């Protein structure tokens, strides 16, 4: 079984964070989203991975993942170029998968329990494809599968008014090589893309059985800022306490705190987990870092109250205000306006930023 990791897309819903890099590299609990996918594939025994690149972030993604050896996998890059749809991205991987079954993983998606069960449930002799499903409360907003008692898919419907089930497709698939011939016969959809659901539908119409696997743990598409915060919360929830850095006398630490080796929590600072603090971070006197916060490398926190927030890294936060539910991009400076006249907030805000003041 090989793996195809789709890592294209523009990341437009994550601007301004994605003005400077691809969405797959946004950190969740101080680890780029795409690394979770590589680790899930590895855990499922998939060590030959084709990483499909679009236009954006090619160099950055290669720089992070390299040849895959640091993760114990072997990576081949596949340059899709124009974003002609997920089925086109899969089609570009034909030479790479070389007639074997393969699993398709969306590089900006996260699954609590990985893809092992999906792969196990799929058996190529029987099925043309396997799809991951999750129960949702609003199936009319998703692609929905109608399945029988054995989990065999009867049909797929896109955003149905009258959903046949509450089982939504979540963007993880296993395919037999039969899918390539089907993709070759596909026509672009109304939005000019080759759609993966059309490919699966067409496998069904060509007489292939489609397996399904209902995912029980959480699944997160990290396309929007609030999704990053939610994914960060979910990952930190499962984290273990590990204090490898320096905790000064007089610092107060409670709960699951992950403190990297060269990070420091100074006397007078309060940290309440679950929290992840990366290398070269200093939490100074008078600061409060509360639950579900991740602070990226080389950051100085001096005075604020922070909760449920992701700080990407290389920042200074020296205001003594309260910062909650925030996503703060690389090298952002958040300083105090106290004592400055005339009174008021002073901002240099990037394109597509969102502020609630």
């Amino acid at each position, binding site marked *: 079984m090989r793996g195809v990791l789709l890592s294209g897309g523009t990341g437009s819903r994550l601007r301004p964070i994605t003005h400077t890099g691809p969405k797959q590299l946004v950190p969740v609990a101080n680890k780029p989203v795409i690394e979770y996918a590589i680790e899930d594939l590895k855990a499922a025994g998939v060590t030959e991975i*084709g990483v499909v*690149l679009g236009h954006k972030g*090619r*160099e950055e993604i*290669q*720089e992070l993942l390299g040849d895959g050896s640091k993760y114990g996998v072997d990576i*081949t*890059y*596949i*340059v*899709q*170029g*124009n*974003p*002609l749809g997920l089925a*086109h991205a899969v*089609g*570009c*991987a*034909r*030479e*790479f998968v070389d007639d074997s079954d393969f699993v398709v993983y969306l590089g900006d998606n996260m699954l609590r329990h990985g893809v092992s069960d999906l792969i196990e449930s799929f058996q190529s002799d029987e099925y043309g494809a396997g799809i991951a499903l999750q129960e949702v409360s609003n199936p009319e907003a998703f692609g929905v599968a109608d399945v029988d008692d054995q989990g065999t898919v009867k049909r797929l419907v896109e955003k149905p008014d009258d959903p046949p089930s509450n089982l939504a497709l979540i963007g993880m698939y296993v395919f037999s090589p039969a899918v390539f011939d089907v*993709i*070759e016969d*596909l*026509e*672009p959809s109304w939005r*000019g*893309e*080759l759609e993966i659901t059309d490919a699966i539908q067409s496998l069904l119409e060509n007489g292939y059985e489609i397996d399904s696997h209902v995912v029980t743990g959480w699944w997160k598409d990290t396309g929007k800022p609030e999704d990053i915060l939610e994914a960060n919360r979910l990952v930190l929830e499962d984290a273990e306490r590990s204090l490898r850095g320096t905790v000064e006398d007089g610092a107060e630490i409670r709960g699951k705190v992950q403190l990297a080796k060269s990070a420091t929590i100074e006397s007078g600072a309060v940290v309440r987990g679950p929290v992840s603090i990366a290398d070269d971070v200093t939490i100074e006197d008078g600061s409060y870092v509360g639950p579900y916060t991740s602070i990226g490398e080389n950051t100085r926190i001096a005075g604020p109250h922070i909760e449920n927030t992701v700080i990407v890294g290389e920042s200074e936060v020296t205001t003594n205000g309260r910062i909650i539910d925030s996503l703060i991009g690389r090298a952002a400076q958040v300083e105090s306006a106290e004592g400055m006249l005339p009174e008021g907030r002073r901002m240099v805000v990037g394109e597509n930023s969102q502020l609630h003041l």
Partner: protein
Amino acid sequence: MRIITHSCPECGTVVAANELEDNRVMKCPREGCQEVLRFDDLTEEEQEFFLDNRDQYQI
């Protein structure tokens, strides 16, 4: 839709035809690979097919 790709003979990186056609001559997109890839590396039949159906490979 027929999907035409070419693999770098040096490092195995796969490049879609639309990318090759955009550039005609390009350095392999794999960081550190010095191989030069050309649209002409595709077979004549592939080149012809791509150019005849060029529109569907644009977005």
